[in-house]
């Protein structure tokens, strides 16, 4: 459903009124379109060590963006990228301030601040404290940035996925990812032949794909070149067929919670594909009740669909030859799994459980031909489900993030597509929040 308030404050009169009386002014976010420049202006690259590493300049330049290593007067930047991997003592954080402070006001709308840091490793207390400090800086800066700009932190343990991560965060694909740290580890992360078709030749399966976020994920995976099998309950088949025909995919009627779901899935993959490259565990239900009023079937159905199905399907895939090497699995969690939500003990259990599942499965997926498994925790996303919320609750919920608006299904889909891409092979066992830096549970 359309965000009328957002439209209003982006009209000439609405903007004036909102500015005068100090109302929140959510921006229209820049979103990815194939063929358009990845970043709306030049990217200024800096380093806390003084000289910017040539490798990093090369990676940024490869995105096609105009890449500057020195500030140019009267220039407005699409993004500021700061390599802060050298900081080892709190005093050196001043270099970070020295680079960013003069440039922040030159950031274009929907601009990006991307900080590269190191992962605390327990070898040097002062260095670890300083590396962790980057987290606080980025999260706070994300709350200060305006007009749809975001700040995020790449904790670089290994550079394998750095090109892919930089592209994602500079582009409109990351529109609703804000104030988040992402750990880049080792892994197989081949660059695609065509960055606009990073999933070309891949076979993907999305559960719960008949509508909402699942349908959006199917659309983005297909746009990025994958053949997408869209799965949902047989009863949702009418909507599911429309999704498949829109994205050029194929349908699978599957109740993920049914006892024979893993067998049916494996049989379908055997009969219809040359193996699965991408699996998106998106199917999910809510049966909200206060725990004091919760009935056994409300508890059990949510657990069965949202969590147990993922455990069983993953186990079946890992034990089969139906999952190809360098496969990507993305599990839908929720910010409810991180922060909790009243009336959602059952749902919260599953969404937190998924995070545990992902962390605990990472090694097993690495062992399966360098595959990965990650979770996405969406915040408040405009869907049929949120459209049914009471007006006032929805309006408040929409503004409760740094970007002062709800995300769109496509924002979750872009994150899923990125984590599913070959280049993201160094990201494993992670939870990526797509929440506009939701103020709840951060």
């Amino acid at each position, binding site marked *: 459903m359309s965000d009328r308030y957002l439209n209003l404050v982006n009209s000439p009169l609405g903007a004036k009124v909102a500015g005068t009386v100090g109302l929140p002014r959510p921006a229209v976010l820049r979103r990815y379109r194939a063929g358009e420049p990845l970043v709306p202006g030049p990217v200024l690259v800096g380093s806390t060590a003084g000289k910017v590493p040539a490798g990093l300049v090369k990676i940024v330049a490869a995105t096609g963006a105009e890449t500057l290593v020195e500030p140019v007067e009267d220039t407005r930047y699409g993004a500021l990228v700061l390599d802060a991997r050298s900081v080892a003592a709190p005093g050196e954080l001043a270099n970070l301030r020295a680079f960013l402070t003069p440039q922040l006001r030159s950031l274009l709308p929907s601009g990006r601040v991307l900080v590269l840091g190191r992962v605390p490793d327990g070898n040097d207390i002062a260095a670890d404290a300083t590396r962790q400090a980057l987290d606080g800086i980025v999260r706070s800066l994300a709350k200060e940035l305006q007009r749809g700009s975001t700040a995020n932190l790449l904790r670089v343990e290994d550079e394998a996925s750095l090109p892919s991560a930089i592209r994602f965060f500079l582009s409109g694909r990351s529109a609703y990812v804000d104030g988040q740290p992402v750990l880049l580890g080792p892994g197989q992360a081949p660059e695609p032949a065509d960055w606009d078709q990073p999933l070309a030749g891949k076979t993907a399966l999305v559960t719960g794909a008949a509508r909402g976020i699942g349908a959006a994920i199917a659309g983005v995976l297909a746009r990025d070149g994958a*053949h997408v099998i869209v799965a949902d309950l*047989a*009863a*949702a*088949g*009418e909507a*599911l*067929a*429309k999704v*498949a*025909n829109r994205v*050029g*995919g*194929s*349908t*699978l*009627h*599957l*109740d993920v919670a*049914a006892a*024979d779901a893993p067998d*049916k899935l494996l049989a379908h993959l055997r*009969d*219809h*594909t*040359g193996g699965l490259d991408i699996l998106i565990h998106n199917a999910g239900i809510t049966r909200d009740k206060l725990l004091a009023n919760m009935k056994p079937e409300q508890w059990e159905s949510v657990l069965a669909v949202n969590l147990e199905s993922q455990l069983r399907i993953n186990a079946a895939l890992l034990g089969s030859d139906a999952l190809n090497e360098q496969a990507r699995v993305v599990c839908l969690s929720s910010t409810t799994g991180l922060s909790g939500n009243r009336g959602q003990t059952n749902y919260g259990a599953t969404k937190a459980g998924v995070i545990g599942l992902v962390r605990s499965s990472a090694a097993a997926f690495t062992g399966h031909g360098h595959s990965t498994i990650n979770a996405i925790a969406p915040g408040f996303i405009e869907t049929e489900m949120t459209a049914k919320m009471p007006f006032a609750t929805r309006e408040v919920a929409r503004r409760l993030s740094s970007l002062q608006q709800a995300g769109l299904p496509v924002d979750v889909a872009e994150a899923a597509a990125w984590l599913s891409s070959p280049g993201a092979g160094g990201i494993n066992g992670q939870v990526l929040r797509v929440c506009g830096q939701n103020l709840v549970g951060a």
Partner: protein
Amino acid sequence: MSAPRRAAIVGGNRIPFARSNSKYARASNQDMLTAAIDGLVARFGLQDQRLGEVAAGAVLKHSRDFNLTREAVLGSRLAPTTPAYDVQQACGTGLETAILVANKIALGQIEVGLAGGVDTTSDAPIAVNEDLREVLLELNRARSAGARLKALRGLRPGQLMPSIPQNSEPRTGLAMGEHQAITTREWGITREAQDELAAASHRNLAAAYDRGFFDDLLTPFLGLTRDQNLRADSTAEKLATLKPVFGTREEGATMTAGNSTPLTDGASTVLLASDEWAGEHNLPVLAHLVDAETGAVDYVHGNKRADGLLMAPVYALPRLLARNNLSLQDFDFYEIHEAFASTVLTTLAAWEDDAFCKQFLGLDAALGPIDRSKLNVNGSSLAAGHPFAATGGRIVATLAKLLHENGGGRGLISICAAGGQGVVAILEA
């Protein structure tokens, strides 16, 4: 002559069948056929593909739908360069389209094609009264004002009565049910046996739904997710309480609304291809269409007992069996279309009747009985409903999947049709 290759049945898709004037009351044949095609396209990822051909048809068809199948293709997600044609062989339409497409594949003329059928008794064509039609045609031919006036003088109030299509035989004026009532009586088919067969149809179809058998054969349409006619709790006892509706002019009528198929709306499609095409597209082969035979009886002038309107499959089958060196017992599954419960029972009784088989089928002995546990194991038309031209596609896809699930085997299809016709076919996996 080298044997031609066998066409593979890759899969099927239909929409749930709806009772007449209910869920699909406002859906046209073209709407339903397009939905069934699009569901198939979605299931197998055929978007924008050019298929060798699409053959489908409807029994009750508006004159504006002269190119029904082609129009459905143009409205679907198939490539608009996919050719299509309409077939009409009454209730045999659906199976006949599958045979036509399979034959072209077998001959190597096409690699892949789609067969199907659709029918609505809700959105039925209504034609103008025959007298009015003559007046209007005369008016159209008139070249002067005077001639036009003269033509218009032929108008009468009674001509406003529209001509509604009848489910009856033009040459006898008898409804199909009345024809079958004669056959039923001639063969002494009991009410109990009919009700038991009808109850089994509902029971089997409900069980098939419950175990997810139709998950990859069906796509919901207009909010309907199962066949609307299905009564999972139907029993022979409940059916025994219904009043007979056919053959009631004589004592002891046995055919009721419960053991006869209701008027139904729906559409079905089947995807056929060469093995090579299926392999290249990473699609499974459920079964092959081995052979088929179409027959007809002289129900107008023929023997009252032996040449019943719906008995043509009885005659077609021995020819098919002989050509394939098979006996009636060489099958793992039998799909005999349940136009009426008594049609199935008459067909089986005829094949078991030594004297009949010798005299009318020219055989040395009866074809014999079949193992009834192999008959319509996932239900048939009595439970699912029977949108005339859509029934063949439903049965072909169902049987192909059954054989595939079974890990192989042979299945027989028998479908009776108006005009004293019948189509039989053999599938193997």
